């Protein structure tokens, strides 16, 4: 037997990235390549009356809606975003056309000489305005138990409202895409998470069969969800340009352009009504979730689904009434971002529990523990918690690591400690995995095994983890397990690299295929084994009523955050985060720790310093001078441990991990800030500006 699979190995992609050998899209050169730049809307909402174009020099092109041979929409959950604007523009930064040509300076010059005559229309700037005008994109409801009756008999009813803000991904590498049309095939290269999403979008934009389209992921410098659906837009734009110009075309954003036009985390308002019984326990919850989807719906409906399916967090409320709405505003479209809707509602629910506990005068952690889910309990959608819930063990450990009990009792002003409990549903929401039907291939080739998946490495360590699963399953050294390029012409569609599904779902399929390959190893020098996703029989889901198992299994965690508030400036100093997670089984502990630390840091950023707001449809923090993410100086001490709780259907027992740490950190940090100043907090990011104001009201 070999060592435990959790024992770390060297990252397989590490040396190429450190040495500079790795080729990002910006490093790629095509013969006769042209550059493209996007002309964008400067208006929040307007009718385009006319576009006055200068005479173009030889070899320069304008590419717009009239050049799209197929459907001028980006295909995603709701295919409503035009590739190039048609009659109207709906947000500042919306793409109208590309200027394409051999010299960037000339392209820039042409762009500045195109004038667009707009007729301004009445825009919607905020979620509140959108609610007042009822510009609803999506409206979901579900109930559990008998909420009306529960509210009728409630001893106390508590009403709270929580707000969360935008968040920009700030992946190290901005968006970039290139297309080359040759051999009657469109080759599209770029920084992305989901090559088959881009392929699907290209079939519609070009009106072509997928056989004539190949999408190839280039080395991707971070994504966090920001390269889930957005690259489908740029992929289609460059392909249309390559088709028109008959030359390879590249489109690469710089940071400022990327921030202005790329998707962001949905700002949210979550309203709660909680019914308390005579023991002050929550027996029923009425939740209203509002997300700002921006100008187009895109994949916001599924973000909203995860948001409303996560509203109960780790708690078992007997009665529920849940509503979720996506609103249309004239802001830049919101989209996928690590956590995918869950961080907004988990934050709200954790803070609600925290604030109720403070009102009734009990320790928030003890109060939360009175409501925790246990094995066998129904989920909020009437599914079932099938596996052991190790929260009690997790909480014991995290409170020991942080000395929570002692510190919370001897609390002094300006020093705070707070805890969060959380979960994350593993894999796609609802029947997503059945719809996608992920497929993998393992190819034996002499002494080597080649794994073929469309799951992408974007910095998170997927390639290391998947190769490791195969190597350990077949008892091969990792060097003998190779990974085919994420090229839609070479690999099957194992599904998008999203929803923390890659290790558990794709790794699980690889593991099954390995077992077959092992049995048949001596059959031939070269052969392939494949597997497609089969939904376990015991899981039920009805997508119309939202009843059943929204997720096959959950990963769990608890965080304790310790903060110090500067008594003069109210700056928040996050000193330490203690974290314990149940992700089933770590496949590679160092890679996993990297995910946990990164998720925590991103969560701390969202909760504290990452202020992004709009003023009349215009982003105020629109570059990295004004929009700040944590630096190494801002990162707290992070103590992180795992409890083992192997999942029967995950490879080596692994469940989901990538999004979980993001979900947990914000409520812990905010609970600690609340504890430090003894004030309730209803909105993030929570800033020194807010705290100074709140504390002066207290005094």
């Amino acid at each position, binding site marked *: 037997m070999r060592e435990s699979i959790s024992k770390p190995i060297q990252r397989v992609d590490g040396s190429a990235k450190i040495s500079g050998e790795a080729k990002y899209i910006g490093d790629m050169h095509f013969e006769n390549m042209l550059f493209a730049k996007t002309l964008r809307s400067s208006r929040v909402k307007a009718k385009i009356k006319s576009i006055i174009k200068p005479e173009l020099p030889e070899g320069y092109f304008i590419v717009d809606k009239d050049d799209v041979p197929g459907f001028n929409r980006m295909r995603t959950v709701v295919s409503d975003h035009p590739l190039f604007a048609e009659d109207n523009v709906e947000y500042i930064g919306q793409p109208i056309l590309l200027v394409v040509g051999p010299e960037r300076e000339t392209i820039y010059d042409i762009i500045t000489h195109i004038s667009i005559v707009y007729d301004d229309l009445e825009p919607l700037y905020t979620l509140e305005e959108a609610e007042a005008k009822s510009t609803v994109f999506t409206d979901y409801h579900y109930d559990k138990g008998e909420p009306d009756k529960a509210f009728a008999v409630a001893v106390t009813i508590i009403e709270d409202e929580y707000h969360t803000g935008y968040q920009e991904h700030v992946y190290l590498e901005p968006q970039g895409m290139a297309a080359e049309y040759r051999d009657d095939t469109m080759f599209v290269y770029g920084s992305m998470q989901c090559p088959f999403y881009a392929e699907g979008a290209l079939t519609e934009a070009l009106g072509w069969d997928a056989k004539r389209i190949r999408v190839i992921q280039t080395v991707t410098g971070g994504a966090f969800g920001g390269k889930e659906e957005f690259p489908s837009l740029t992929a289609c734009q460059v392909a249309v340009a390559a088709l028109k110009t008959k030359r390879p075309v590249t489109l690469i954003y710089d940071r*400022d352009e990327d921030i202005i036009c790329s998707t962001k985390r949905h700002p949210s308002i979550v309203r709660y009504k909680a019914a308390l019984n005579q023991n002050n326990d929550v027996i029923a919850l009425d939740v209203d979730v509002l997300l700002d989807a921006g100008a187009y719906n895109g994949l916001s409906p599924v973000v909203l689904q995860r948001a409303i399916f996560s509203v109960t967090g780790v708690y078992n409320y007997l009665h529920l009434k849940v509503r979720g709405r996506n609103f249309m505003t004239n802001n830049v479209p919101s989209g996928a971002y690590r956590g995918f809707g869950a961080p907004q509602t988990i934050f709200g629910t954790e803070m609600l529990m925290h604030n109720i506990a403070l009102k009734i005068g009990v320790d928030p952690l003890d109060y939360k523990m009175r409501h925790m889910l246990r094995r066998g309990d129904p989920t909020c959608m009437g599914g079932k918690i099938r596996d052991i819930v190790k929260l009690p063990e997790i909480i014991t450990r995290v409170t020991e690591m942080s000395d929570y009990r002692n510190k919370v009792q001897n609390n002094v002003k300006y020093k705070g400690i707070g805890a969060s409990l959380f979960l994350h549903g593993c894999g796609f929401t609802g029947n997503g995995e059945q719809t996608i039907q992920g497929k993998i291939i393992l190819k034996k080739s002499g002494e080597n095994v080649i794994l073929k998946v469309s799951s992408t490495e974007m910095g998170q360590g997927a390639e290391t983890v998947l190769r490791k699963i195969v190597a350990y399953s077949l008892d091969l050294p990792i060097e003998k397990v190779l990974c085919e390029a994420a090229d839609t012409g070479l690999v099957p569609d194992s599904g998008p690299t999203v929803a923390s599904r890659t290790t558990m779902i794709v790794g699980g399929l690889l593991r099954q295929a390995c077992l077959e390959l092992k049995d048949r190893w001596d059959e031939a020098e070269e052969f392939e084994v494949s597997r497609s996703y089969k939904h376990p029989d015991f899981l039920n889901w009805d997508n119309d009523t939202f009843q059943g198992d929204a997720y096959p299994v959950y990963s769990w965690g608890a965080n304790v955050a310790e903060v110090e508030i500067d008594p*003069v400036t109210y700056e928040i100093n996050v000193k330490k985060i203690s974290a314990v997670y149940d992700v089933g089984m770590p496949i590679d502990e160092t890679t996993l720790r990297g995910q946990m630390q990164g998720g925590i840091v991103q969560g701390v950023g969202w909760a504290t310093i990452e202020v992004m707001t709009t003023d009349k449809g215009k982003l105020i923090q629109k570059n990295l001078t004004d929009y700040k993410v944590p630096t190494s100086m801002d990162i707290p001490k992070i103590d992180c441990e795992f409890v083992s709780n192997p999942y029967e259907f995950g490879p080596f027992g692994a469940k989901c991990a990538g999004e979980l740490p993001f979900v947990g950190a914000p409520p812990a940090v905010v609970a600690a800030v609340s504890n430090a100043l003894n004030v309730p907090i209803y909105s993030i990011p929570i800033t*020194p*500006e807010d705290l100074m104001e709140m504390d002066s009201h207290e005094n």
Partner: protein
Amino acid sequence: MVDGFRPVTLQETLNIRSQYNCTPIAGGTDLMVQKARGFALKPGFEQPLLFIGHLPELQKIVIKNNQIHIGSGLLLTDLLNSEIIPEIFKEAVRLMASPPSRNLASIGGNICNASPAGDTLPYLYAVDAKLVLKSVRSERLVSIGEFITGPKQTALGQDELLTEIIIPNKIFNVNYYKKVGQRKGMSLTKAVFLGMTDIKNDNLTDIRIAFGSVSPKIVRSREIERTIVGKPTFEMITAIPEILAKYALLIRPIDDARSTAVYRKKVSLRLLEDFLRKIDKEK
């Protein structure tokens, strides 16, 4: 096309400066950001560049007549490595930018950029730093307060260069410096406060107070300082409301993407108050 000059000596540099309209560039950490036009495009300089960061004449740091003479081309990192720069000034420099930027950015650039958020400025105002401005025809000495005429505006002549910054070789008894940024590293200033005093036999013999980022220029008032000097330290607490009220009239911050006017003003006054309370505790 961007043309550039890369002279070898200061004399040669001043000659070029007198003959051409050109833009001096030291580390370029302000200029390259201000003139950036976008990915892979040349920065939008209207004039030829005059590279000065490498000039040996601008790299010296010496004590003469109990004054520290700092070459304008010295990097922020050089200041941190120097043994003769007062610790509180180093603290200000240490909180600027990040190690890579500090390895490029010059002190002369921070002064000539004349941003209200320039982090070397509060200290230089507080010690009445003198600047040496040189041209082929003259050499003049101006105080930092005269040199900076407004946000991004200076009294630098067309043909002049800032060659030296002169500060007293003096360390105060009590030093207080606080930069409030959006985060701990690589952050522009929301508000900054600097306070220094000398105390002898329980009496304040000198006091310097400067605020940055909260007005078009650094806020320093000799007049208010004069009313504080001479007071016994134990009277500080009772004097606080009056002192705060006087400074409150001078601090006129704005709302922007990084903070609010209300916060900037309050935090500035709170820092001042904290400093004055510390004095009260000093013997």
